[in-house]
C-alpha cells in the first residue's frame, strides 16, 4: 500500500480525482450557502423544496437542468475564442487548488513559490473573462470584459503587496512553511497567534482586493446585471454559462482558503493536532471568510467605475506599501 502511494504517478492520479471532485463540491456548498444566507438576510426562506428539506439539492437540480439546455453560439461571435473562454476560467480555478494545504501532508504540491503561484494563477481567469467579453460580439459583453480587465489591473497590485508583509514575517513563500511559521509565532506569552494579529492592515487590503478579483459586490462592475445584463456572460447559455458560476464559487472557496492560510493560521489551531483536525479547522476558517463575503454582498452598494480605480490607486496601494515598510522595520529591529 505504502509502495503504491510512494509512486509519483499513482499519487498524482489520486490527487487529480480528489480535486476534480472537490472543485464542484466546494462550489455547490458555497453556492447553496449563498442562496440560503442571502434569503435569510432579506427575510425570505430561499430554496425549500428540492431534496426534501431546506432545499439542499437546489443547485444539483439546477446543474442537471443546465445539462439539458441548448448550447447557443451567436452568429457574429468569434466561435473558437467563445468556446474556449470558460475552459480558461476553470483552468485557473482548478490549478489554484494545487497549493492549498489542508494539513501538513494533505496538500497536492507544496511549491517553493507557493504565494507567487497563487498570485499568478488567480489572474489567468481574467484572460478567460476578457476572451468571453470580446468574442461574444455584444456591446454589453465587451464593456463587461474591459471593466474586468481594468479591475484586475487596479486590484492585482494591492493583492500582491499585501502578501509581502506575510512573506517578510514568515521568511518563506511555501504555503505549508507559512502555516508552520504561524504555528510557532508568539507575540505575547505562549499561545501561537495567526498573522492577522500583526498584519491586520495587510489582511484588510488582501480581503478587499480578493473581493475585487472575484468580482463580488461591491466590486461587481464587470457583471453588473442592472446595467450590463451580466456583462461578459450575456451571450452564454447552458453548460458554458454554468462554468463561469462554477469558477466563481470554487474561486471563492480557494481565495478564502488562501486568505485563511496566509493570515488566519491555515490548518493550525492551538490545542488541536493538525494531522487529524487540520482539514476541519481550515474548512471552518474558509466558511467564516466566505460568510463575510456573502454578508458584504447584502451590505454595500456597488461602486462607480472611477471610485473603484481611485480606491485602489490612491488608498490601497499606498497603504500596502506603508505596510511593507513598517513590517520590514519591525522585523529587523525586533
Amino acid at each position: 500500500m505504502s509502495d503504491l502511494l510512494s509512486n509519483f504517478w499513482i499519487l498524482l492520479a489520486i490527487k487529480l480525482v480528489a480535486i476534480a471532485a472537490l472543485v464542484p463540491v466546494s462550489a455547490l456548498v458555497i453556492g447553496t450557502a449563498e442562496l440560503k444566507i442571502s434569503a435569510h438576510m432579506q427575510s425570505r426562506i430561499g430554496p425549500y423544496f428540492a431534496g426534501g428539506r431546506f432545499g439542499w439539492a437546489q443547485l444539483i437540480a439546477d446543474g442537471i437542468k443546465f445539462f439539458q439546455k441548448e448550447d447557443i453560439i451567436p452568429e457574429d461571435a468569434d466561435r473558437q475564442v467563445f468556446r474556449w473562454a470558460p475552459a480558461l476560467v476553470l483552468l485557473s480555478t482548478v490549478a489554484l487548488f494545487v497549493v492549498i494545504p489542508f494539513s501538513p501532508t494533505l496538500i497536492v504540491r507544496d511549491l517553493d513559490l507557493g504565494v507567487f503561484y497563487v498570485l499568478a494563477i488567480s489572474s489567468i481567469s481574467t484572460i478567460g473573462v476578457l476572451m468571453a467579453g470580446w468574442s461574444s460580439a455584444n456591446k454589453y459583453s465587451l464593456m463587461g470584459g474591459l471593466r474586468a480587465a481594468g479591475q484586475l489591473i487596479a486590484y492585482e497590485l494591492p493583492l500582491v503587496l499585501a502578501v509581502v508583509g506575510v512573506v517578510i514575517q514568515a521568511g518563506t513563500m511555501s504555503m505549508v512553511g507559512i502555516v508552520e511559521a504561524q504555528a510557532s509565532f508568539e507575540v505575547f506569552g505562549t499561545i501561537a497567534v495567526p498573522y492577522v494579529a500583526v498584519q491586520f492592515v495587510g489582511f484588510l487590503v488582501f480581503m478587499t482586493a480578493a473581493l475585487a478579483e472575484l468580482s463580488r459586490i461591491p466590486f461587481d462592475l464587470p457583471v453588473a446585471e442592472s446595467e450590463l445584463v451580466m456583462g461578459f456572460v450575456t451571450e452564454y447559455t447552458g453548460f458554458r454559462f454554468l462554468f463561469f458560476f462554477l469558477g466563481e464559487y470554487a474561486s471563492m472557496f480557494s481565495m478564502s482558503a488562501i486568505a485563511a492560510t496566509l493570515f488566519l493560521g491555515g490548518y493550525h489551531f492551538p490545542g488541536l493536532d493538525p494531522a487529524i483536525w487540520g482539514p476541519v479547522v481550515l474548512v471552518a476558517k474558509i466558511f467564516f471568510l466566505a460568510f463575510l463575503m456573502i454578508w458584504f454582498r447584502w451590505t454595500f452598494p456597488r461602486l462607480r467605475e472611477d471610485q473603484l480605480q481611485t480606491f485602489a490607486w490612491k488608498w490601497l496601494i499606498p497603504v500596502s506599501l506603508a505596510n511593507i515598510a513598517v513590517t520590514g522595520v519591525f522585523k529587523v529591529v525586533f
Partner: protein
Amino acid sequence: MSLYFQDYITVGSFAALGVVLVIVMLGVAALLRPSNPSPAKQKTYECGVDPVGEGWHQSYVRYYVFGLLFVIFDVEAVFIFPWAIKLEDLGVFGLVEMLIFIWILLMGLIFAIRKGVLRWE
C-alpha cells in the same frame, strides 16, 4: 525524476484537468441537449430589439495609463519578494535599501496622482 520536474508535471496536469473537465462535461451534455438553431436565436442579444451596428464597436479604453503604471509596479513587486524572504539575513542594510526603493515608488505614485493621470474623466 527530480522534485523540480515533479512540481511542473503536477501543475501542468492540474491546469489540464480544468480544460478536461470542461470538455468532458460539455461532451456529456451534448448527448442530452437539443440542437435546433434558428436565425432569430443566433442573433446577438440586445434587450430584445434587433442589434444596432456591430458588436465590436469602438470603445474608449480609459485605463491605458493605469495599465502602464501597473506594469511598473508589478515589476517592482517581483523585486520586493526576494528581499522579503531574505530580510532576516540582510538586516539593517537591506532594510534601508528597500525603504529608499519604496520611497521612490511612493513619490512616483504621488507624482502621477498630482499630475492628474489617475483622474477618471
